[in-house]
C-alpha cells in the first residue's frame, strides 16, 4: 500500500427534490449526502458503514456519476470527475467499476455469462474478438467459474455464483478502483465468506483499491483497512479498522459496535440501545443530526454542527465531545 491518494472527495453533497401538489408546488428537499469528505489510498480498502438510508450507496453512485448533480469535488487520479464530458466519463468508467448488491437484479436475464462478462470490453473497444474471449476465460478462472458456464444464463446460477459473475464483469477491464455496493449482503452467510475472500484475493493479485459499502460491521471489519461511519448523509467517524473497532469515539459508532452479536451465550454484553428511529433526512435535526438519539447530548449539540476533526493520527471524529 502506498500513500498516494487514488480518490479524493471533498465536501460532496447531493439533495433530492420532490414536489407535491398539483397547483401549488410544495418542494421537499432530502439531503441524501451532506458534505462528505474522504480519500481512498492506492491499494487500500475503505469501508463505509451506516444504517440504510444514510447515503452510503448514494455516495458510491455519485463518485461514478451514476447519479448526476452532486456538489463538491471528486478527484480521481488527478482528474476532476465532476467536470468530465460524457465521453471522458465513459472512459473513466473503465477505471472505476462497480459491484452491485443484488446479484439477481444486476445481471441482464437475457444475456449469457459470456456476453455479460465480455460486454465491458466491447463497450470500451478493447482487443479483438479472440483476445476478448481469452480475457473472459482468464477472468472467469480468477473468480472460480468453469468454462462450461460460458453459455449459461444468470438464472441457472446460485446467488454466490451470480455474484462471482458480477465480480468478473467488474474485473474484466482491469479497473483501478472497484466500488462494491453491499456486495455480500444479499448472500447466505456461508457464501459471504467465500465471496469476501475472493475479493481479498483478487485485490492482492491485481493491486485493486476498494470502496466497500456495507451495513454489516463484521463484513467491514474483515475486509477493510480503514472504515468510515456515516449517519444521515454525514461521516461521523473515520479511522483505521482496528482503531475504530477497539477504540470507537463517536457515540453513534459505539452504539453500532455494541449491537454486533457476540457468538458466546455466556458473554454479558453491555449494549448501548439507541432509542427512536433514524430521523427523516428531509427534515434533519438541528446542529449535530445525531443529537436526538445521543446519550451524551449537550446544549451545543442542538445548535452547532460538529466538524470532522483529527483526534489522533488517522482518526477523525465529528463530535462536540472531542
Amino acid at each position: 500500500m502506498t500513500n498516494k491518494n487514488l480518490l479524493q472527495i471533498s465536501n460532496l453533497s447531493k439533495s433530492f427534490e420532490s414536489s407535491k401538489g398539483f397547483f401549488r408546488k410544495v418542494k421537499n428537499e432530502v439531503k441524501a449526502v451532506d458534505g462528505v469528505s474522504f480519500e481512498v489510498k492506492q491499494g487500500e480498502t475503505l469501508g463505509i458503514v451506516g444504517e440504510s438510508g444514510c447515503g452510503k450507496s448514494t455516495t458510491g453512485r455519485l463518485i461514478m456519476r451514476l447519479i448526476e448533480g452532486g456538489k463538491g469535488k471528486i478527484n480521481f487520479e488527478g482528474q476532476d470527475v465532476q467536470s468530465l464530458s460524457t465521453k471522458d466519463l465513459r472512459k473513466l468508467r473503465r477505471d472505476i467499476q462497480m459491484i452491485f448488491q443484488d446479484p439477481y437484479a444486476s445481471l441482464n436475464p437475457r444475456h449469457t455469462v459470456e456476453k455479460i462478462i465480455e460486454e465491458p470490453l466491447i463497450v470500451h473497444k478493447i482487443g479483438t474478438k479472440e483476445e476478448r474471449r481469452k480475457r473472459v476465460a482468464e477472468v472467469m478462472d480468477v473468480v472460480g467459474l468453469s468454462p462450461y458456464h460460458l453459455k449459461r444464463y444468470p438464472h441457472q446460477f446460485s446467488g454466490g455464483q451470480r455474484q462471482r459473475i458480477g465480480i468478473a464483469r467488474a474485473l474484466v477491464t482491469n479497473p483501478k478502483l472497484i466500488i462494491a455496493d453491499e456486495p455480500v449482503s444479499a448472500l447466505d452467510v456461508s457464501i459471504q465468506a467465500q465471496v469476501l475472500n475472493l475479493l481479498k484475493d483478487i485485490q492482492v493479485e491485481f493491486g485493486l483499491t476498494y470502496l466497500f459499502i456495507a451495513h454489516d460491521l463484521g463484513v467491514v471489519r474483515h475486509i477493510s483497512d480503514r472504515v468510515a461511519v456515516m449517519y444521515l448523509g454525514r461521516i461521523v467517524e473515520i479511522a483505521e479498522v482496528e482503531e475504530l473497532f477497539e477504540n470507537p469515539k463517536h457515540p453513534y459508532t459505539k452504539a453500532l459496535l455494541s449491537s454486533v452479536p457476540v457468538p458466546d451465550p455466556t458473554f454479558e454484553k453491555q449494549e448501548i440501545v439507541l432509542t427512536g428511529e433514524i430521523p427523516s433526512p428531509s427534515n434533519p435535526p438541528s446542529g449535530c443530526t445525531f443529537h436526538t438519539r445521543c446519550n451524551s447530548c449537550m446544549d451545543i449539540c442542538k445548535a452547532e454542527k460538529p466538524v470532522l476533526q483529527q483526534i489522533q493520527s488517522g482518526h477523525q471524529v465529528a463530535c462536540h465531545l472531542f
Partner: protein
Amino acid sequence: MKNEEIVEKEKTPFREFWESFRANRLALVGLGIVFFFIVIAIFAPLLTSYAPDSQNLADRLLPPSASHYFGTDDFGRDLFTRVVYGARLSLWVGFLSVLGSALIGTFLGIVAGYYGKWLDTIISRFFDILLAFPSILLAIAIVAILGPSLQNALIAIAIVNVPTFGRLVRSKVLSVKQEEYILAARAIGMGDTRILTHHILPNSIAPVIVQGTLAIATAIIEAAALGFLGMGAQAPMPEWGKMLADSRQYLTDAPGTLFFPGFAIMFTVLGFNLIGDGLRDALDPKMK
C-alpha cells in the same frame, strides 16, 4: 464421468419458451389453424382450377357441388376459389399492418419511456388522442381521407393500432429502466444506444410479440369490417369482408355465400387468438 459431461443440456430462453408453449394444447391448435391458412394462401393457385374473378353468369348462386366445393356467388364465381385467394389478402393485411404498428409503436414507446420528460408528454398525449376515437371510426376517417382501397385500409389499421403498442412498450420500458442491470450497464460505461438495443429492447419485447399476435386477429376483423362497409378492398377483389357485404341480399337463396367467408374470418381470428394466449402464458406468466 467428468464433471462437464453430467451437465444438463443448455437451456436457452427460446428453448424454455418453446417447451412451455408446446405444453399448451390450445395454442398448438391455433398454430395449426394459422399454419393451415398460410399454406392455403401460398398454394392458392394449385388448389383450384378457377380464377378468383372469372365470372360465369350461367352458374349464379349454385349450391356446393363436386365442381364448386362451396358453390358460386351472384356473378357465378367459384366461392371456394375466392375464399382461398381471400386468405392471401387477409393474412397480408393482418401481418403487414401489425408489423407497421408494432414497429412505429415500439419506437415511440421506447423513446417516451426511456427519455421521459417532454418527449414522453408529447408522445403519450398523441396516443391518448388516437385512443379517444373508437378504432373503427378512426380507421374509417383515415380511409375517407386516403380514399377507399385495401392498401389504405391497411395503413388505417396500422395507424389505429400504434398507441396500443406504444403504451405497452412505454410501460414496460419504464419498469425495465429501473432494473439494476441497466444501472450496471451505465456503470460499465455503456452509451444510451447500446443500452437501448442490447438491454432495454430485448427485455421489453415479449409483450409486444403477444400483443402483435392478438392484434393480427383484430386487424383481420377490422380489414373485413372496412371491406364490408365498402371502405376497404374494392370489387372484384376476393376479400372476405367484401364478400360478406356483396352476398348479404342472397342469404336465403345461397347461404353458402355468407357462411364460407364468415367461417374463414372466424377461424383465422380464432387461430391467432389461441396462439396469442399461448404466447402470453409462455412468455409472460405474470400477465395471465
